[in-house]
């Protein structure tokens, strides 16, 4: 058990920068998820921690030791791989005890530890099976047992649930959380599935294009995303974004207006492009808006498509007027990576019993406490919730400073 520190870690492959100046400070016993889209550098970050790849620049510390140049076997890390990677020519006992046997533990000690590990992952009585005689979930447990049997300082998991079917994945997710509670080891967990990241981790590190975007507890990432990327990536379905610009009295988009005291927003001036972000659950029907404490002015929309999910209904809304113009603009502005639906469209989440049909004219209101404003040019978050503007800013600088210089201290 130890803390893990990455300082200015950069990994370059010929002309591609896989990891760019990564700074992470992970506390002892913490469960941290590295999350991001495919190819964002999260697995490479993991490999540099494990020692399977050497970083081009930067320092990696586990506890007080600088492990940057140590081979994987001397780092005190254990890893669970996406493809499970059990040794097919060894039975379960040999797989689990592989690392111990290499370290010349005596037989009694190996037996004791293997039994303890199989107990934890509930694999008793399967020690003499071969990996190809086991189901996917059982193999994954063996892989986890192999990792925990050595009491590693840091536990690395590279998408360990990706190859399991959906039901088993949810089951293993809770198992992993239980395991973390039991072992209290530092766990770094790589996933591209934001649901996994949200449910399991103490903190989420959102990575995009090799750069750390934000590292915060799940709900902070959800409620106070540092920038457009985090806002769009965390949460399913993702946040609605509407392009607009700052005016004297608030933010004006092509279809609606959000009133607020703009003087309290730092770093932007009247006329600057602003992106308004609002989550589907913060869009409400105007005639049901009584339960919203701070609604905006009603916005006239047309319903487009309904997606009944059982526990809720997703309604796609077409914003009126000028939606073509915003669409064209985003295409020109294509270098900015924003994970969001098309412009001119709002997604709304409603109770399943709501009386609503396709192609219907309705009015919706937004929850002003949950409207996020982003600087369209930098992508950085400006304000989370416009209701309190004029009084005080919601959220402070420390939790959502710039994405590039974010270092958790």
């Amino acid at each position: 058990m130890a803390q893990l520190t990455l300082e200015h870690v950069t990994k370059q492959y010929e002309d591609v920068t896989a990891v760019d100046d990564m700074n992470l400070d992970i506390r002892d016993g913490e469960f941290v998820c590295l999350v991001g889209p495919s190819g964002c550098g999260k697995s490479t970050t993991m490999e540099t921690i494990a020692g399977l790849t050497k970083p081009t620049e930067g320092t990696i510390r586990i506890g007080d030791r600088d492990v940057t140049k140590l081979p994987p076997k001397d780092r005190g890390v254990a890893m669970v791989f996406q493809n499970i990677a059990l040794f097919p020519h060894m039975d379960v006992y040999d797989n689990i005890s592989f690392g111990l046997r290499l370290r010349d533990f005596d037989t009694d000690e190996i037996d004791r530890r293997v039994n303890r590990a199989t107990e934890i992952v509930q694999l008793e009585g399967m020690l003499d099976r071969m990996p190809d005689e086991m189901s996917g979930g059982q193999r994954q447990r063996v892989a986890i047992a192999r990792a925990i049997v050595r009491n590693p300082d840091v536990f690395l998991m590279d998408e360990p649930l990706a190859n399991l079917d959906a039901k088993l994945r949810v089951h293993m997710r809770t198992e992993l959380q239980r395991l973390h509670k039991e072992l209290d080891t530092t766990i770094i967990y790589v996933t591209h599935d934001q649901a996994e990241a949200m449910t399991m981790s103490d903190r989420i590190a959102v990575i995009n294009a090799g750069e750390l975007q934000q590292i915060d507890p799940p709900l902070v990432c959800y409620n106070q995303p540092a920038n457009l990327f985090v806002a769009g990536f965390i949460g399913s379905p993702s946040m609605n974004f509407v392009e607009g610009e700052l005016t004297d009295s608030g933010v004006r988009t092509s279809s609606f207006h959000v009133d607020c005291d703009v003087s309290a927003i730092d770093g932007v001036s009247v006329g600057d492009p602003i992106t308004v972000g609002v989550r589907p659950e913060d869009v409400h029907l105007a005639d049901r808006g009584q339960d919203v404490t701070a609604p905006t002015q009603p916005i006239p929309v047309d319903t487009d498509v309904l997606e009944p999910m059982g526990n809720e209904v997703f309604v796609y809304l077409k914003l009126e007027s000028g939606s073509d113009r915003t669409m064209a603009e985003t295409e020109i502005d294509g270098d900015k990576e924003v994970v969001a639906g098309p412009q001119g469209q709002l997604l709304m989440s409603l109770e399943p019993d709501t009386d609503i049909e396709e192609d219907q004219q309705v009015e919706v209101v937004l929850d002003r406490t949950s409207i996020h404003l982003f600087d369209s040019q930098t992508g950085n978050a400006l304000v989370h919730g416009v209701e309190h503007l004029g009084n005080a800013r919601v959220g402070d600088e420390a939790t959502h400073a710039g994405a590039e210089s974010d270092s958790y201290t």
Partner: protein
Amino acid sequence: MATQTEQQTGSDEQNLGPLQQWTQGVLSDQEKQQRLYRALFYVAAIFFLVTTLFPFYWLLVLALTPNSAILGGDWSLPVIGLEFPHPQGFNVVAFVEVFQQVPFHLYVFNSFVLAVTTTIIVIAVASLAGYVFGRLDFPGRGPLLLGILVVSYFPPAAFLIPLFDAFLGNAVVLPFVGIELFEPPRLVNTPGAMIMPFSALFLPLSIFILMTFYSQIPDGLEDAARVEGTTRLGALVRVIMPLSAPGVATAAVLTFIAVYNEYFFSEIMALENVPQNWSPLVGGILSYQDQYTTDFNLMAAASIVGVLPMLILVIVAQEKIVSGLTAGALKE
């Protein structure tokens, strides 16, 4: 042909000739088709069996027939009178005589030791090379691989004279310039003079076999082994090689057989044909022939004795070799 038959189908079947009827039957009837394929299979199998097993049969005939009868040269069968090689007598003593006349077991031992040592060297070196070529990406990989391929294209005889010269203990001199590089130790009549060239000659094939196998082992397994506590070399020995067992067995057996049967190099590097000079198995077989007499029955018996270790090896390793030569991708 097919269209012809199709045209025929329309007309009355009775008008067809026997051959046409038969082809018609094969084309339309599944069972007849099966029968034809089975027949063709047996024809091919019997052809191969006869061509490979007949020499063995002949060896057995020669070994059991006393030498005088062989030299008499009358092979006609007792009743029919047809000329066909068959044992004339049952002279099993030849198999004992083989060891009495010359120390044949020493020749077998020589070949065995040479083959085992060469195989171990080849597998060790080719494993390292196969790992590097199969699993790592580095500048110059292509040209190096091509270089190995080029070496394997050289006829072994091309190396013979320079190597013989060097192994005699003569100084190695740069051609044309006349600069003396170094003076090698005198290696003729020692296993070193044979194992070194054999290893060099049989390495390329093994490298290519092992490279293919090692490159198919998923990266995750090697990574897992390294995180668990092995070095890269440890991962090669503990994980990659066991998982490539069919490939390693194939490379080993091919090398072993080639060296065990080798005659050309070893006979020249051993200055006299005596077991003390590490003369090989084939040298032993040929030593039943002197200037005036040739004991064909003993040569045949010795050949059979010499083949036995090979036969045992192939039977034991057969399964692995077959799967090695025909192997597909390995699943994780």
